[in-house]
């Protein structure tokens, strides 16, 4: 591995989770280790007649427990609320709050936050008021008349996808570069990768990064149901998401946030912080193929993995001196759709060749669902915990082998393993592929 100076090394010094499995790193991780599921019937709206009636919701969450003054976040939408909870954990763990001489202009933000939730009942009411039998066009003047009365200013402003940035900046006094990317299901992997790149370039010493999203709302479920991307399994919702299983029939929506504090190593050391892991590689590519389909050979995913490994100085086809494959664990995108899981498997084989079968690869989406823009950051954190604890989270509901899918998916139960280097993949609708490589801090 290439030698990097401390100013060209980036470490993680804090992390936080608000997920369907818990409101902290420990609570969520313990449940992942026990193969528990966060799925249940959708409670946010009446989904009883929808093709998909279940999801993994964040339950009993109160943002006020996480922030200094809840009043300044009084109008925050769900994405911002989740982001505040996760980022507050990461910020507290990093110890930056106690760092008296912190230069806030050298602290930035890079999030992969989703668009906010529509004020749907009022929105629908305005739309219906602007319509008549047999119409082909909305009467926009009538719509405006009703919309002005029923849609609220702050509720609308808070739907902008950059509002989680605004809330986090306010909470932590951040004044450095602040960006939000929204590349569908790859967004927060990309955000962490770009945040890491900004530190490497010297544009910031610290970046708060991660993702936050919920699409568990009427038009979110509608949109994915129309795309036939969601599982429509009947019966027990905890069995619905079956990544890599031959009977998989789509993903299940989750929601929540994962956040990390990234820091230039020399900055972390100078203030006596404890590095949790080191980010060593980031890759990003576009399929440039079709708007709905993934390039069937896994070309795009392979390209982003190759880039990330090259940056980390890792040859995917070489073994380490102790005989281990180049990587100890892959956190899969593993949505549980027919197409994703097949092509992802193909892409990993394309990169790691005959070694692919020796690298455990699991998807936590069977347990906590697909957190869309937030998924990548949440999964990146599982890699750090796998390194910390020497434990791999399982792929649950794996019962029927798909003959094409012949890798080690860590079926059903968590596994003890020697873990020093992990790779985390995220692939988004629209052909966006992003990969991070993270290793034990030495």
């Amino acid at each position: 591995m290439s030698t990097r100076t401390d100013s060209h090394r980036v470490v993680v010094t804090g992390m936080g989770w608000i997920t369907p499995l818990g409101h902290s790193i420990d609570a969520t991780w313990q449940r992942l280790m026990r193969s528990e599921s966060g799925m249940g019937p959708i409670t946010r709206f009446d989904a009883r007649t929808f093709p998909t009636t279940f999801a993994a919701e964040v339950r009993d969450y109160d943002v006020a427990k996480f922030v200094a003054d809840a009043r300044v976040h009084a109008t925050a939408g769900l994405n911002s609320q989740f982001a505040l909870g996760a980022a507050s954990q990461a910020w507290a763990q990093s110890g930056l709050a106690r760092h008296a001489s912190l230069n806030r202009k050298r602290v930035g933000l890079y999030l992969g936050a989703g668009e906010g939730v529509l004020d749907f009942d009022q929105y629908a009411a305005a739309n219906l008021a602007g319509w008549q039998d047999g119409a082909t066009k909305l009467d926009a003047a009538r719509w405006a008349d009703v919309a002005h009365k029923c849609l609220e200013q702050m509720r609308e402003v808070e739907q902008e996808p950059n509002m989680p940035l605004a809330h986090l900046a306010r909470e932590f006094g951040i004044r450095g570069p602040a960006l939000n990317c929204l590349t569908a299901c790859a967004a927060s992997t990309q955000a962490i990768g770009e945040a890491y790149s900004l530190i490497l370039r010297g544009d910031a010493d610290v970046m708060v990064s991660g993702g936050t999203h919920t699409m568990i709302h009427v038009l979110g479920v509608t949109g994915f149901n129309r795309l036939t991307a969601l599982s429509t399994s009947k019966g027990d919702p905890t069995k619905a998401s079956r990544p890599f299983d031959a009977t998989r029939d789509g993903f299940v929506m989750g929601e929540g946030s994962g956040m990390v504090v990234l820091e230039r190593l020399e900055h972390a050391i100078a203030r006596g912080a404890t590095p949790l892991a080191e980010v060593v590689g980031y890759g990003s590519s576009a399929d440039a193929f079709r708007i709905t389909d993934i390039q069937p050979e896994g070309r795009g995913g392979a390209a982003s993995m190759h880039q990330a490994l090259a940056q980390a100085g890792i040859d995917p086809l070489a073994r380490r001196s102790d005989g281990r494959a180049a990587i100890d664990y892959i956190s899969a995108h593993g949505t549980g759709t027919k197409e994703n899981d097949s092509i992802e498997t193909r892409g990993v084989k394309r990169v790691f060749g005959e070694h692919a079968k020796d690298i455990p690869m699991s998807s936590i989406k069977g347990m906590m669902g697909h957190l869309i823009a937030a998924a990548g950051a949440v999964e990146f954190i599982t890699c750090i915990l796998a390194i910390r604890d020497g434990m791999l989270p399982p792929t649950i509901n794996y019962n029927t082998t798909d003959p094409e899918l012949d890798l080690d998916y860590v079926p059903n139960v968590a596994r003890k393993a020697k873990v020093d280097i992990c790779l985390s993949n995220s692939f988004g609708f629209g052909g966006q592929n992003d990969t991070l490589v993270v290793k034990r801090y030495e």
Partner: protein
Amino acid sequence: MQRRRVVLTGLGPATAFGLGIEPLWAALVEGRSALAPIRAFDASGFRAACGAELPESFDVKEFVLKSYRKATKVMARDIEIAVSAALTAVRDAGLTTRGTDPDSPPTIEPNRFGCQIGAGLIAADLDELTAALWTSKGEQQQFDAQKWGQQGMQDLTPLWLLKYLPNMLACHVTIIHDCQGPSNTITCNEASSGLSLAESQRVIERGAADACLSGGADSKLNPMAYLRQELANRLAHCPVDADATTAVRPFDPNAAGSLVGEGGGILVLEALDSALGRGARVLAMLSGTGASQSFCEDTVGLVPGANGESLADAIEAALRDAQLSANDIDAAIPYGCGVSAIDAIEADALSRVFGTRATTLPLVTLAPNIGATVAGFGAIAVAVAAKCVIEQRLPARLNSQCTPGVCAIAAASQSVALRHVLVFSPSLGGQNSAAIISRYESQGVA
């Protein structure tokens, strides 16, 4: 280590004056405004019934190959603008891509070709959605989720969601031009395009791509998106029979708000070595970028900060990145939308960076001509800045009669020596973006 230089080799602005830099530049030099009553929908029920729309003749199908025409059915207006702007930029740069000529080898290797596009929050087309919702009314004429789940949602095309995901701008552009390198979508309101250009700069610098299609596009001319602009206190009072061409007055104490313009731009950003290697015409240099976050008393930035301190930080970061000092800057293009609170922090940022020179540093204001272009702004402004340094000319300024502290009073176009032009914008949400466009001289750094 010598940093890889990033230059502009193709400009593809899309504005109410049409596609490409020439019609926009001609209108700016002549001092024409495209602000007029909105055609896209009946806007008489809103505070402003006027805005700036792409020309009536605009048709995205003219900007894609025949084989891709079907895909235009799943493009929101924002996507149409980005796709059209991208082809315009690619042609301007003299590139061969899969989108210009699928049978010829591409100028830029697909895996060395990136794409970073800024986008807004795209609102669903209400005609299509409401036609579907109409069949799912309950007894009190309210929306009935059970009817919707059972039947109503089936009326939406299966790909409905894909019209509105912000990353579908980049998705279509990468597919059309076969850009397989790093690709991203930045969503930071008015700072989106500027931050996307900065990201392309970083991607090219670190060697992850040799060229990027970069910029942004946004159309708020949809009742829902438009209402959000009104609720964000952006719009001037401008009924349909008012003179919209004089309604937007940036930095004038009598400014009374803005009008929205749809549009954006895609630019070809390229490593200087790549541009020289293929014998390309280098238009200008992207010599530095900067970004920052403002403190907003109201958290969300509806009131855009108490002062321009953080915006000044972004400008100073761009100056450092370009290894220039404030004295090197010859002109600036602010967001300049005519909303007093936003104009005020821009003026304050200028005075913090430029001191007393802020009163004489010529500003270029675009909103009186093409409206406030939100997520599309940075790319349009950078295209205009490039044209300024190429032509050694400043466009005319419209409308403002008195602009204390800054130099933005209405004036005719004039010929001026210009080496470095600053572009910047604050945003709703508090993100700030700045970029410096420099005249390209073949000896290298101007």
